[in-house]
Each structure stands twice: as C-alpha cells, then as structure tokens.
C-alpha cells in the first residue's frame, strides 16, 4: 500500500484560524479562492491586501499576507496609495456591497477609471451584514431588510446597482467579471476569474475586478440551503454572471 497522498489542504495564504463568518455565508469560500490564487501564482510574499469595513473587516485574521484596514469605502484609495509607491507588489481590495457600492462609490469608480493596477474582490450579498441587515445599494426589489421593512421600494430607493456592469462602461481598459460561489460549478468558474484577475495584475496589464454574488443567511432570515436557492432564483437573474470587460477583447454585449 502506497503512502497516503494529500489532495486537499489549507492554502499557505490562509492562516490557521477559526472563522467568525456565519454558517452558510460564502465569504469563506471566496477567501479560499483568493488564497489559492496567491499560492498558485506565487504572489503571497509580495502581496498587500486591503480589508474593508463590514463583515470582512477582519479578513486580515485569515489572509496570511501583509494587510491594511481601510475606513468605510476607502479601500481603493488605500490600494492606490500602496500600489503607486510599490508598483512591483500585488495589491488587492476585498470589499462588500455597502462598502464598495454605497459609501465608496467614488473611490471604486475613479480607481477603475485611472486604471490602477490592483485587483478588487467585490462580495455582493445584497445587504449590510455587520451592522445587522440594512438595505444596501444592491438589495433586491421588494427584499425586506431592517431599513426597508416593507421591502425595497424601487420608486424611492432605486434599483440595485449592478456594479460590474457599471464599471464595464468606462473606456479605460480593465478586466471585469461577475461570478457566484453557491454551487461547485459556479465556484470553479469563480476561481478561474479570480485567478485571471490576479494574473492580469501580475502582468501589470490593467485594473481587475471580480464581483462575487454571496449569501447572507443570517440577515436574509433564511437557512443556508434556502439562501443558495434565493441567490439562484432572485439574484442571478438580475446580476447577470459572466465576463463584462477584458483587456484582450471588446466588452461582451
């Protein structure tokens, strides 16, 4: 009998730590995909990550690389500061939807428009998680949250902002894709996109942005399984998955 072979292990870019994320939340999967990518591309030791404000503010407890923690919404500004003074390092921001799509709208649009050579992992779970389930710019029409207890009224709160599609409108070259991680098939695609994003940065090609649809069972008031179903039934039809923009190809219509 041959010696046992390790076929699955914690990436070096993840620390050995207990998670603070809720059961059924997909932040952990997304962390892992980023960490696997840093390992596979050999980037961990020259990477600086920027944590947002929100559930993933503590992501520096998990990523085993240099990390900074930003003020709410300002991660792209910090990343710009780091990347401009250390252009040969790898810089990424990891941001949620309240952080990136609301208070940090100006920072993300202008970082993308300047073509800053860093990578953004945008986790869209259609709600503010850490503060306890308030309406986000990405909250779905009629979705109930603590600050839209009768459901999001698109007449007064507008429609969910499709950030990846909005950023893809900019003329500046970029890599922009929207993915999901609620099934193994989607997760495999998400891994490919995240890896592609870091690859473009490593080649100093362009700004890269991956929007990842994510679950929030706690604040959606659903079980993990119901959350996966809701994401598939409600979010995926609105937040269309796929490549939005590539430095290699014209945008997909």
């Amino acid at each position: 009998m041959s010696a046992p072979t390790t076929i699955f292990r914690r990436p070096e870019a993840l620390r050995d730590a207990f998670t603070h994320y809720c059961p059924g939340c997909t932040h952990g999967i997304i962390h892992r995909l980023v960490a696997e990518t840093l390992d596979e591309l050999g980037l961990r030791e020259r990477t600086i990550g920027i944590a947002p404000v929100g559930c993933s503010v503590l992501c520096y407890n998990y990523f085993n690389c240099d990390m900074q923690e930003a003020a709410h919404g300002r991660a792209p500004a910090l990343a710009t500061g780091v990347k401009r003074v250390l252009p040969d390092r790898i810089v990424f921001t990891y941001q949620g939807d309240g952080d990136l799509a609301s208070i940090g709208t100006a920072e993300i649009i202008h970082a993308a428009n300047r073509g800053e050579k860093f990578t953004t992992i945008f986790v869209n779970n259609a709600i503010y998680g850490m503060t306890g389930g308030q309406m986000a710019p990405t909250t779905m029409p009629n979705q109930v949250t603590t600050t839209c207890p009768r459901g999001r009224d698109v007449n007064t709160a507008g429609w969910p902002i499709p950030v990846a599609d909005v950023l893809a409108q900019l003329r500046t070259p970029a890599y922009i894709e929207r993915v999901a991680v609620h099934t193994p098939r989607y997760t495999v695609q998400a891994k490919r996109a995240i890896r592609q994003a870091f690859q473009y940065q490593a080649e100093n090609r362009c700004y890269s942005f991956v929007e990842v649809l994510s679950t929030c069972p706690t604040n959606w008031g659903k079980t993990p399984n119901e959350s996966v179903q809701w994401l598939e039934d409600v979010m995926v039809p609105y937040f269309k998955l796929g490549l939005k923009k590539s430095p290699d190809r014209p945008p997909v219509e």
Partner: protein
Amino acid sequence: MPKKLMKGNEAIGEAAIVAGAQAYFCYPITPQTEIAEYLAKRMPEVGGVFVQAESELAASQMIFGAAAAGARVFTTSSSPGISLMGEAMSYITAAELPAVFINIIRCGPGLGGILPSQGDYLQAVKGAGHGDYKLLVLAPSTIQEAVDLTIEAFRLADKYLNPVMLIGDGLIGQMMEPVDFESCVKPPRLDCSAWATTGCAGREPHIVKTLFLDPNVLEERNRRLKAKYERMAREEIRFETYGCDPPPDLLFAAYGTTARVVRTAVDRLREEGASVGLFRPISVFPFPDDALRQVAHQPQVHNVLVVEMSMGQMLEDVQSALQGRRPLHFYGRGGGNVPAPEELIDEAKKLLGNGHGGKK
C-alpha cells in the same frame, strides 16, 4: 544656490521635495492649488509619485495607504478640503503612521471665500476628525519659515509616528518672498521595516489597522497616544517673542501672517514710546502655555491682546494659558480681511491709555 523669489505655495512644494517626500496625493482647491500644479511638474522629475485624486477624502486615504507602505507622504488642501481629510487624519493617527498635512486656510464657514483666514485653528489643534487624537501643528509666518517648518514637519512625523499639520493663512500660500533652500537638511529615512506593509517575504505578515474591539487593548493605545502628546509638549514647543525684554505693558499674542502685522504695529507704537511686545506661538499644538505665562505673568505686563484673522480661536488657548491672571482682550477680522497696523495701533492705545503705558 542663492535666495530664490518664490510664491509660498511653490516654496512649500519645493520644501517637501527637499524633505524627500516620495508621494503626494491632492485635490485642487483655492488658495493652495499652486502646490499641486508645482508638484505635478516636480514630483515626476525627482522620481516621486503625483496623483490627483477624485476628492480630498480619497487623496487623504491614499496618503494612509502609502504611509502604511512605508513611503514619506503628504497632501495639501484648504479649509473645506481639510474637513473632508479629517477622516483620514483620525485613521492615520490611530494607525501611528507618519504623514504631513498642509492647510492653506481660507475664510469660512461653508464655502466662505478664498481670501486668507485663521478660522481653522481650532479644527487643527482640536482635531478635524473623530476620536481621541491630536496632530502636531506648526504655524509659519514667513515663506522661509514655511519652507523650514515643512521640512521639519516630515522629521517630526517620523519622530512621533503621528501626522503633522502645517497651517498657513492664505497669505502664506499666495505671497512671494525670497527663500533659501541651501541650509535645509533632509530628514533621514525612517526605518519602517518593523511595520510597513511591503510584502511578507522572509517575515511574518504586517497588519496596519485601527479596529480594536477589546476595550483594554484600545485604552492602552489611547494612553500611548496621550504619552506621545505629552512628549510633544516637552520637546516640540516653538515660539518667538518680540519687544518683550524689558517686559511690555501690553502684550500682543498672534501667530502666522497676523503676527507680522502686529510686529509692524509694535514697531510703530514703540517709536511713539509705548511699551508693547509680541508673543508669537509657532507650535500651536503643543501650545507654548508655559512660555506665554512666563512672559505675560510678569508684573509689568498689564494687558494681553490677542489678534487673529478669525472671531477668536487661539484666544481659547491663550485664555487657558493665562489662567485669568491678566485682563485678556481680542481683536479679530473675518471674511478674508487682514487687520491693518493702524487698527492694531488704535486697539492698543485704548488699552495703553493716553500715557502709552510705558510712561505711567
């Protein structure tokens, strides 16, 4: 290099380059935009970083990122922009990083106007942002002093791992005066290898953060900041006296450009035989309380007159320093008006009486 005639804003920009600034992030706002224009040309020439940000919020947070990555960094703005930078000041102080902020103050509140003012004194010394923090604040009164203190600001930011702010009223930015860069000394490079986020090759990862949910851990950091400010009060007090030996009957207190107008008034009053002098704080946080008391509490000093281009802000620090032991008076101009020497002479004469004090 002989003395060079330079506009204050450009001189401040050049001073930052002499100080070895590696990155500058900015947003245009009058009356300091020439600093950005000057550095847009100069930073690339010296291999530095120049970025025009989308807002003062972003510019100041870019400073945060670059400072944490170990670069010598600074930004400049004027009053409304500094309000937006208050956020980053709080975070950078909390993270204990060196950075320099320069405020070429315009008159307010609100959009106010674009003319000179000293209306941001309290914002500077008490803090534009949230939480228990302070900046070390320096206030030049000439272009040469603005140059020297800009360079000094970078050294002090490194020394204390705390942001340092230079405040100049609009005149400091807009005036032209001869300046000398020859005697300027570039502060040594800070060794930030123990904390800078530069990639973790060969070491454990560095984390620069300001969230501390454990009250005891956060309180310990609060105490550390307090100790830092107490050390500043011991080691960084800067001030100048003029006409204070022998002690004057009437002591003016003023800083920045206003102090230069006061100086003119003091000269003219002394020509008339009046006993007047000037106390000029240069560090306004830490404020030179003891030094001011030592001058003002001499028995010969009967009145203290604070002059500002505001409705009375440094006045609060002077009041606190004097502990009510001398009659305190105030003369302020607003809206961008600069007090004329004649106005100050008139004010002084009211306090000196007809006998001009010195002759009583």
